[in-house]
């Protein structure tokens, strides 16, 4: 073992020590008042709505689709002289804090971004917190509820708008005595209105395995427009079984991606200075059916979206757009017993990309059209909601596009890709560091995700996650043209999340 490795080991011990301290402190916490916002509002334990957070039970799905309305506390009330109620405010504000603390180890350190041949000083590192969210959730007024999250992002060192879902919902009883719910969710992340854990917003992996190294391609519905769009989604639920939703999203000025309007200095409207501007109103749809029997709930469904995007970033917001059409199927089988809970679920997305804006112009894509598929499936088991494990498989496939996937482009959709070749360091443009590009232009990435989980309290979960890549950005070995192998990105990730 060389000097370098010994140093690494010491750093690892230090991090383990620090985590152990934090862990010990948390385990010593009294649980009595440590229930998050919905539990406070409903007076019910987390297990009513969740198997283990964030996976919802049937009860949790109904609670969400009914606009987070169940309110078992005392309201502050006001009525008019005519007896009409004009205020029904929960006496305790439904606020909560949600914290994730993580530590990441890559199988092989990343290269130094300045000096050829050097490696990064430490491999991974504790993120304390990796994510810290302030949440407001629950009833605002009768039929009107919210789930809104403002999150601190460790890597960007900023607070950002996270998942935000304001919704109106009402339930009526049909003449045949069956319940019928209808509602509108105004939100900023397509699929967040959905109550099953198969769609991307609250789907597997709950904790992203690509903590350090993102793969080169992902369908746009897979959080590709999250927090950069907003729009209304109308939905219906018949007999707690059949669900259908239709929504439209448009560009939302939000965060660093939207510098706002240079002329007025206000947040918008955006112009060609902004990259990836979503054009007009873009449809999102969802249909699902749940059948409950014995201790099982089984769901099958389909969802999709179509987004039209101007490349922007110096190009006028006019003319053709890049069009991304996603169609997906999903399923979920959930078993909830007295001691054992188990869930098998999966989704498969097909995306057709009609790159009318960038394709013919050679503006970052080699092809006039591309396609992607994305498969995510996992099995999770919990014993007494305390000890659990997950085995999941993620697979991305797509058409080969040398310029798109090997031109130094990091995210989808892409506006400016310079040339075919390994990703060059922003710190040293002469240095080809690779890591995030695909040398052969093939986006195929396959990963096995294994998680061991321990939840000493219902609101505290510790996850040890191991991600093994059998293929990364199109190859098993030397995928970036600079000598990095798929398994070099294998990630060990220790994570603790708690809500209070």
């Amino acid at each position, binding site marked *: 073992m060389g000097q370098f490795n010994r140093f690494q080991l010491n750093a690892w011990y230090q991090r383990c020590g620090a985590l152990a301290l934090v862990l010990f402190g948390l385990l010593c916490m009294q649980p009595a008042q440590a229930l998050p916002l919905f539990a406070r509002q409903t007076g019910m334990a987390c297990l009513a709505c969740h198997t283990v957070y964030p996976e919802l039970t049937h009860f949790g799905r109904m609670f969400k689709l*009914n606009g987070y309305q169940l309110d078992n506390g005392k309201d502050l009330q006001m009525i008019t002289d005519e007896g009409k109620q004009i205020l029904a405010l929960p006496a305790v504000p439904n606020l909560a804090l949600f914290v994730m603390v993580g530590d990441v180890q890559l199988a092989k350190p990343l290269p130094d971004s300045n000096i050829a041949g050097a490696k990064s000083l430490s491999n991974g590192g504790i993120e304390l917190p990796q994510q810290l969210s302030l949440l407001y959730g629950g009833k605002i007024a009768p039929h009107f509820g919210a789930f809104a999250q403002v999150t601190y992002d460790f890597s960007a060192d900023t607070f950002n708008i996270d998942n935000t879902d304001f919704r109106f919902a009402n339930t009526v009883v049909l003449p045949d005595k069956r319940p019928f719910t209808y509602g509108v969710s105004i939100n900023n992340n397509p699929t967040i209105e959905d109550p099953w854990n198969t769609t991307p917003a609250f789907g597997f992996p709950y904790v992203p395995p690509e903590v350090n190294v993102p793969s080169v391609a992902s369908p746009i519905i897979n959080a590709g427009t999250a927090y950069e769009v907003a729009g209304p989604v109308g939905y219906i639920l018949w007999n707690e079984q059949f669900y259908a939703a239709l929504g439209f999203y448009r560009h939302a000025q939000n965060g660093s991606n939207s510098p706002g309007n240079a002329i007025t200095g206000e947040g918008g409207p955006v112009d060609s200075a902004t990259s990836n501007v979503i054009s007009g109103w873009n449809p999102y749809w969802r249909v699902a059916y749940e059948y409950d029997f014995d201790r099982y709930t089984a769901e099958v469904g389909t969802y999709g979206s179509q987004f039209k995007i101007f490349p922007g970033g110096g190009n006028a917001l006019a003319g053709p757009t890049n069009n991304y059409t996603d169609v997906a199927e999903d399923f979920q089988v959930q078993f909830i017993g007295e001691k054992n809970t188990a869930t098998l679920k999966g989704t498969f997305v097909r995306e057709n990309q009609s790159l009318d804006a960038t394709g013919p112009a050679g503006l970052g894509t080699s092809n006039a059209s591309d396609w992607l598929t994305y498969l995510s499936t996992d099995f999770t088991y919990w014993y007494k909601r305390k000890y659990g494990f997950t085995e999941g498989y993620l697979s991305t496939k797509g058409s080969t596009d040398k310029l798109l996937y090997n031109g130094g482009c990091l995210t989808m959709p892409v506006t400016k890709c310079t040339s075919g070749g390994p990703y060059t360091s922003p710190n040293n443009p002469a240095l080809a560091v690779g890591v995030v590009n695909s040398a052969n232009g093939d986006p195929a990435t396959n990963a096995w995700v294994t998680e061991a989980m321990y939840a000493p309290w219902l609101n505290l979960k510790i996850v040890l996650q191991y991600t093994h890549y059998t293929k990364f950005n199109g190859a098993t070995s030397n995928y970036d043209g600079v000598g990095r192998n798929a398994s070099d990105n294998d990630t060990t990730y220790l994570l603790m999340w708690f809500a209070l």
Partner: protein
Amino acid sequence: MKATKLTVLAVAAAAAMTLLARVAAAEDAAPAAIAPADAAEAEFTATTKCSWCHGPQGHSISPIYPALAGQKAWYIVEQLQLFKAQTRADPYARGMMWGMAAQLTDTQMAALADYFSKQTPFASEPAPFSSSSAAAGIAQGKSIYNDGVAATGVAPCSACHQADAGGSDQFPRLAGQHASYLLKQLRAFHSGTREQVVMNGIVGPLQEPDMKAVALFLESMH
């Protein structure tokens, strides 16, 4: 043996006192008619909230949650009051029903109870994996239900819950209830997690296989 006889006597005395108290209470407060507006509100609540666990018209799907259809109204009111007072403390009562019952008024409880009591009783499906061992369990359960367990002095269940387990003005309906819910409650009575002096005493000497058998038998009764 002496101790067993004493136990039976004590349980019988406690049962008699409970019964007398309940009869007296019933005489004091004859069930008031449910106002149409309250009945409509209760039906709406049952169909749009209670149903999330207790199923349509009180026919719960998951056996974690009890079927309420056809249950005696007085028993539903009594349990809701215990949830509200946080004195019924078995795990799901604590985790779910304490919250759900917290804001219910006496009128709402009476109307909900009235609604569920008027629904057609639960016709339990045969167990999906019924086997010869399940059939043997049902037979054993029938014996315990009707005749008790002489060796340990367990009184026959039918003495109070009626031969058809349909319940009465003093005892709740058990017929057709989910076996796993009944077993969970029997365990809670056995361990004392759910406090009810009569049932704590009767179930005390019951062993796990006996509890399972009785639960299976009751589930099989339609």
